[in-house]
């Protein structure tokens, strides 16, 4: 399947493209931020307009790490030292990322704001979480400067303690371009995952029995949604009061991706107790939400749980020689190794490339499995054609036809009325056979008609009055064509019935969704012990074609008769 290979190739290529792109973007960000010294941060709860001024006395302020601001929602000020190098690019820009409404000052000059700082929740207006403010060239002189922020965080959920994410100074142009350049890789991945997800969605719509296709589609779309939620902040942005909602969205989507990953492998490889496996992953992933230390450790714990279960499932599949399992196991192993190597950094640096590689492995294994299934399907089609040909041949074979004609001619010459009946019985049998050839299942009524026509013919040939009683047998229930017919045929071949009356009986019993047909044929005094002929092979092949693995055929002598039992599911 060429398109599937294309999708795999696309994702694999993306995983190569994306990794270096993300790293370059991260390096640029670091360079920009070194212009502000996070260790110089000092906080003061309260609100005095003069605190914006570089000359304001902040000696008594709370000096603490920039990213660990005081726990308050009320108005507070933050002052920082910034250094502008002589060769700094022009124009300069000041970036602020914080879960807070704020005003931004540069040496006492107001550069801009995000929302409106308020004394209470009612008067505060939430603004964009990330802002970038141009610094006029006249103020961007080389040397030391003071950055001051007036903030309030009434719409900040208390669970978000580190509400100041960063303050940076750098070239305005580079900083303005950063959100897109840094997210180019993830956005490419997003497009790739959406395409592959839609593709598998369409494949599933075309063949609804292929549940692995649906799960793969959902997995790809969930990964794409996760990428979208991750990139949303930088590419689109939002007001700071929505930050927690986004964090939960990202965590929830991580959980969904983990569960879908396990579900896809479990269903694809037909793992035992897969319902429990998937539910267990969902619960374990849910428990991982309790991991302390923010949202990244939670997400990482969820991923580790899912990868561990997926590793178990794919390793089991390899052990059971499931087609494509090797690819899947390799993909999971690569992901697990990457997690081990990168730790918490996995989420920022390696998650999407590693996941793209994993999904590529998944697609490759799906492709192999599809090829395997198609080959089996083709083999089944060939088998069906072969069986059909065998059915047609059955009664056109010389042994049956020429012997019957010889008897018929004898009757015609010695007792024309009987001769006509023999020929009519032969015509009946051939007609029913022609009608049922090409079918894979026929109603029992047709099968019985076929058997009785054959018994008529054989009766004339053997001077035996054959009878087939089939009381209580559902005439509508379907059986593969000529199965009973073959059993009846065998009984006549293997028994030299003396002239007289011979009665065959067929009964049907039902239990536990199975129907059991019992055919009882009398044993003649001297049964010819013959090997199991082509007849029974035909019956077995027909049953396997019709209800694979859900039938049983046993036969043996019982109390002077040969008893054959055939078990079939009630609805075949």
């Amino acid at each position, binding site marked *: 399947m060429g398109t599937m290979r294309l999708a795999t190739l696309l994702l694999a290529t993306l995983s190569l493209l994306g990794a270096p792109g993300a790293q370059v973007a991260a390096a640029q960000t670091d360079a920009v931020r070194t212009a502000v010294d996070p260790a110089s941060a000092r906080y003061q709860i309260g609100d005095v307009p003069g605190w914006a001024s570089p000359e304001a006395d902040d000696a008594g302020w709370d000096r603490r790490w920039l990213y660990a601001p005081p726990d308050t929602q009320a108005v507070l000020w933050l002052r920082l030292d910034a250094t502008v190098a002589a060769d700094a690019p022009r124009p300069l820009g000041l970036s602020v990322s914080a879960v807070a409404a704020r005003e931004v000052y540069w040496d006492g000059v107001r550069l801009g704001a995000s929302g409106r700082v308020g004394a209470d929740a009612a008067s505060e207006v939430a603004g964009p979480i990330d802002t970038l403010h141009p610094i006029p060239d006249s103020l961007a002189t080389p040397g030391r400067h003071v950055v001051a922020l007036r903030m309030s965080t009434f719409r900040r959920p208390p669970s978000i303690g580190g509400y100041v994410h960063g303050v940076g100074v750098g070239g305005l142009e580079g900083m303005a371009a950063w959100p897109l350049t840094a997210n180019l890789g993830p956005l490419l991945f997003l497009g790739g995952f959406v395409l592959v997800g839609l593709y598998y969605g369409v494949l599933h719509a075309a063949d609804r029995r292929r549940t692995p296709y649906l799960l793969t589609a959902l997995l790809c779309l969930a990964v794409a949604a996760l990428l979208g939620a991750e990139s949303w902040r930088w590419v689109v942005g939002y007001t700071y009061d929505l930050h927690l909602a986004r964090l939960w969205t990202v965590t929830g989507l991580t959980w969904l991706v983990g569960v879908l990953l396990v579900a896809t492998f479990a269903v694809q490889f037909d793992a035992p107790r897969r319902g429990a496996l998937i539910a267990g992953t969902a619960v374990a992933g849910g428990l991982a939400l309790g991991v302390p230390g923010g949202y990244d450790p939670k997400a990482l714990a969820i991923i580790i749980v899912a990868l561990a279960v997926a590793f178990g499932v794919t390793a089991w599949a390899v052990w059971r020689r499931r087609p494509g399992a090797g690819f899947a196991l390799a993909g999971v192993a690569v992901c697990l190794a990457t997690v081990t190597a990168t730790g918490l950094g996995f989420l920022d640096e390696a998650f999407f490339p590693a996941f793209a590689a994993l999904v590529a492995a998944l697609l490759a294994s799906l492709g192999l499995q599809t090829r395997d299934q198609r080959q089996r399907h083709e083999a089944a089609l060939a088998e069906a054609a072969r069986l059909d040909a065998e059915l047609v041949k059955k009664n056109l074979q*010389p*042994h*049956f*036809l*020429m*012997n019957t*004609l*010889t*008897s*018929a*001619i*004898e*009757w015609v*010459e*010695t007792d024309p009325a009987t001769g006509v009946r023999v020929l009519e019985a032969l015509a009946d049998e051939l007609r029913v056979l022609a009608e049922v050839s090409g079918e894979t299942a026929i109603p029992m009524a047709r099968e019985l008609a076929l058997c009785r026509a054959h018994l008529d013919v054989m009766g*004339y*040939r*053997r*001077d035996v009055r054959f009878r087939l009683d089939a009381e209580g047998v559902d005439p509508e229930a379907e059986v593969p064509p000529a199965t009973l017919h073959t059993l009846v045929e065998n009984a006549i071949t293997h028994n*030299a019935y003396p*002239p007289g009356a011979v009665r065959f009986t067929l009964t049907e019993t039902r239990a536990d969704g199975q129907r059991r047909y019992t055919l009882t044929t009398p044993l003649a005094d001297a049964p*010819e012990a*013959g090997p199991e002929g082509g007849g029974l092979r035909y019956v077995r092949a027909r049953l396997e074609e019709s209800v694979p693995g859900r039938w049983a055929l046993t036969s043996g002598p019982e109390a002077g008769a040969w008893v054959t039992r055939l078990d079939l599911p009630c609805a075949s």
Partner: protein
Amino acid sequence: MRVLIVEDEPPVARRLARLLRAEAGGEITDLATAATFAEAQDRLGAGDVDVVFLDLNLHGRDGFELLTASAAGAFHTVVVSAHGEQALRAFEVGVLDFVPKPFGAARVRATLDRIRSARSAVPATSLAVRSAGRIDLVPVADVRYVQAAGAYSELVLRDGSRRLHDKSLDRILGLLPVAFERVHRSYAVRLDEVVQLRVREGSRYAAVLASGDEVPVGRTRYKALRDRLGAG
């Protein structure tokens, strides 16, 4: 002519019996029917039968074993089969005729002619020989000459070994290719084996074979044999 029909389908057996009687009623002194070859063993072993009409399907091992068992017998075998395509295979092991089903009076007449002439429609390429409870197929090409041994015959092979066959010399000769010639009441030789004819004292004749063996030649057959060898 004593006939046995081995046929498990009564109408077919009746038909064959009826047609045989109609076409050769006066010649047939005994006509019996059996459903299987095994059932007829006693009668066949006792040498009470001249011709067996054997219903046969050569598909599978059983059919071929039955064929060779019958061909190894003292009697002649006529195969009656629904499988006309198997005729050549049947002739290979030495049967007198092969009657495909369905058959009519004309075909039975032709078979009767063949029985009367005692010559197979197609010569055998091997002979089925019973020995120590099993049946071997001896290639006709290996047979140097055949010698009568009472009611039986002895096949003398190129390697000098001898195999006893249940059939009489007459019946064996009927199955062999025309290259075999009756040179004496008790001998039939392959003509291309004969290198010289010799006259012994007392008006006795002998054929010298390539192997150095000498086979007696009947007085009445000497001239014909000499002519045939001279012409060949």
